[in-house]
């Protein structure tokens, strides 16, 4: 009995280690249906554009790609994986997702295990070890796609295929995407006619750079709105709620509802605000960095969420697939500049400022179970499938605003 139980426990433990490593299924949600629905007409269109039948026959040998994540339960990350798993319905690829990476050592271990499993590339949705992580990956012969922060130190590494940037690469004073997300929120909320707003700064007080940038962007955005005539009140010294939901956060939330605030900006997802807003009975407007999901829909529709900074998965992270597949299949030229350096794909972080914007994305992703960059469109920028594909085509595919996508 004891041995049997021990055996069952060991097996269960082994299985649960793979729970976060959903590939082609667990988090794919409706993508299987999407694949089935879109398959017929997609195949026809793609054949017309690239000659590829979208039947998983390319590449001939299955390509394995590892994805580094900081939180596999995060809605934004799950949206990205839904897109990759959608692509895996049409191409001969397999994605392996890390557990929630908590340290540089943990990140190196995942990269090592990917190399051992025969992965050809790594997508960094998260990077805790910086350029060391990229080097660790490329030293083992795997291609690496990731964020712009570490670009300068690895741009000439032939196995580094670049990444994405929200900034204009030609502008030396350009701010990063987190700053600009915060700025957009500050500007939008500042111009929304609100009287007094608070800002939840997430990990800014703990020194997390991403949140520090978002906070600075918000401060500058609200200041710009005020300079342009907005009467919205915001004082960085007293109107900032620090940290993430815990006892102290709830205490600050209580103070918020006791005061005269009519708006709150959250530098992460705003789920923990909706129920308290309902309970308070107050008309509080919310701006946040979030996702297009069922949870947000009703609060966008009823006018509670008036600004949502959103990273559309296929627009921001779709180029990872194109860059890695082009590099792996011998079309490195499509991932590099004329002088051989890795190239960052300029892309756009969308600010959904109202129900129309939100519902346009919701309609596409949730109702139609489709994406703004489909598998057949992807085929047109893969060198093996479309000989005339150029680097500019790759950039143009992902540097799109919501309006561009809706045209």
């Amino acid at each position, binding site marked *: 009995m004891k041995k049997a*139980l021990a055996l069952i*426990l060991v097996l269960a433990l082994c299985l649960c280690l793979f729970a976060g490593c959903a590939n082609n299924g667990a988090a794919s949600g409706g993508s299987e249906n999407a694949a089935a629905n879109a398959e017929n007409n997609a195949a026809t269109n793609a054949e017309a554009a690239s000659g590829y039948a979208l039947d998983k026959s390319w590449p001939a040998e299955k390509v394995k790609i590892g994805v580094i994540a900081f939180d*596999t*339960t995060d809605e934004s990350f799950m949206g990205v994986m839904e897109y990759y798993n959608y692509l895996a319905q049409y191409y001969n690829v397999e994605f392996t997702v890390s557990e*929630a990476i908590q340290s540089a050592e943990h990140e190196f271990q995942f990269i090592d295990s990917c190399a051992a499993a025969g992965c050809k590339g790594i997508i960094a949705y998260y990077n805790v070890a910086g350029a060391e992580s990229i080097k660790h990956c490329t030293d083992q012969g795997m291609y690496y796609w990731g964020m712009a922060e570490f670009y300068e130190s690895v741009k000439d590494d032939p196995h580094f295929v670049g990444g994405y940037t929200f900034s204009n690469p030609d502008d030396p004073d350009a701010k990063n995407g987190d700053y600009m997300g915060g700025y957009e929120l500050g500007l939008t909320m500042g111009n929304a006619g609100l009287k007094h707003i608070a800002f939840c700064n997430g990990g800014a007080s703990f020194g997390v750079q991403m949140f520090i940038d978002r906070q600075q962007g918000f401060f500058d955005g609200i200041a710009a709105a005020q300079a342009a005539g907005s009467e919205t009140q915001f004082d960085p010294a007293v109107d900032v709620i620090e940290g993430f939901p815990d006892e102290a956060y709830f205490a600050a939330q209580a103070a918020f509802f006791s005061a005269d605030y009519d708006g709150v900006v959250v530098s992460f997802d705003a789920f923990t605000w909706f129920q308290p807003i*309902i309970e308070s009975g107050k008309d509080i407007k919310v701006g946040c960095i979030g996702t297009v999901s069922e949870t947000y829909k009703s609060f966008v529709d009823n006018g509670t969420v008036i600004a949502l900074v959103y990273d559309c998965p296929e627009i921001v992270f779709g180029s990872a697939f194109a860059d890695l597949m082009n590099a792996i299949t011998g079309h490195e030229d499509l991932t590099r500049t004329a002088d051989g350096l890795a190239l960052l794909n300029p892309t756009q972080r969308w600010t959904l400022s109202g129900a129309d914007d939100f519902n346009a994305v919701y309609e596409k992703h949730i109702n139609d179970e489709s994406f703004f960059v489909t598998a057949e469109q992807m085929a047109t920028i893969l060198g093996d499938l479309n000989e005339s594909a150029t680097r500019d085509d790759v950039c143009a595919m992902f540097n799109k605003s919501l309006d561009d996508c809706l045209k």
Partner: protein
Amino acid sequence: MKLAKIGKNIGMTLVLPAAVYLFFLLLCNATGHTGFGVGNDLITIIYNAVYAGLVAQAMAINVTTGRFDYAIGAELVLATILGGNLANTLGWGPIGLLLCVVLIAAAIGAISGLVYTALKLPPMVVSVGLAMIYEAVAFMYNKAKGVCLIGNPMLVFAKTGMSLILTVVVLAVLVVIYDYTKIGYNRRALQGGQKIAVDVGINEKRNAVYCYVIAGVMMGLAGCMYLSKNGVVAPETGLGSASYFMSAFLPMFIGGIFAKYSSYPVAIFMGAVVQAIITSGLQKLGVSNSLQTVLNGMIVCAFLIYSSNSYKLVEAQLFREKLAKAKAARQAAL
């Protein structure tokens, strides 16, 4: 005489929360920070106290007998996700939510207890493994969407009235279990010395399973409160569920010190009240999150140091009494 002792015990039970409340009230007023301990702030103090109190009860019932249960956070997450979705699907309302979550949490607690007693491995090792399994199940269920009941009328357990009713019922039941049932007597015997207790015929395994079930029930109740407060509970991975029981330690240590004046569950709850008041007070004073973390750590350390060394005070007192008696005897002899 008996009334005086009861009065003293009540006084000692309430003195720390009252003193801390008074301290922050005066400090906030003196520094011009209004609104401490009234209105919304009081509601939050009550919520934080009840939630942390429930989690601390779940932690304490096993820790005091040498079993650190790392899986209680994962139990909360899994039970709330499964129970919340089930109650929502069945449309059973608040009572249904409570029943579904608590029963599932109790069942998960029973599984933890049975696995621990069957494997005879160190409880920390078993509970870390079980936490990973529970987290994985919660992650795989419902396409990793957890439970989202924002705006659902069944979310009533974070309201002040309901929180207080819950507290009274839970404390009454726990006091009976701890102080007036065989489970409680056996638990205390095992706490005092496992080998002796087992040698005199106490069934340690059965008692451990009961304790795990009670811990599960407490986490189920805490899950209902958390869900009612936030409307959502998301799955966790990589032992991230541990964040759910981080607020349990200070109440547990305070409870250990003040238990002699009332009952252990009551003392733990008073500890949770103290912690909630400190959190709100520091928040009102505008103390930064980082400094709050440092201060909380220092307070936990202070209580740990006191509880680990309190016997020395008793020894010193006994020594003084003995010395006084000896001196008096020598005086008399002279």
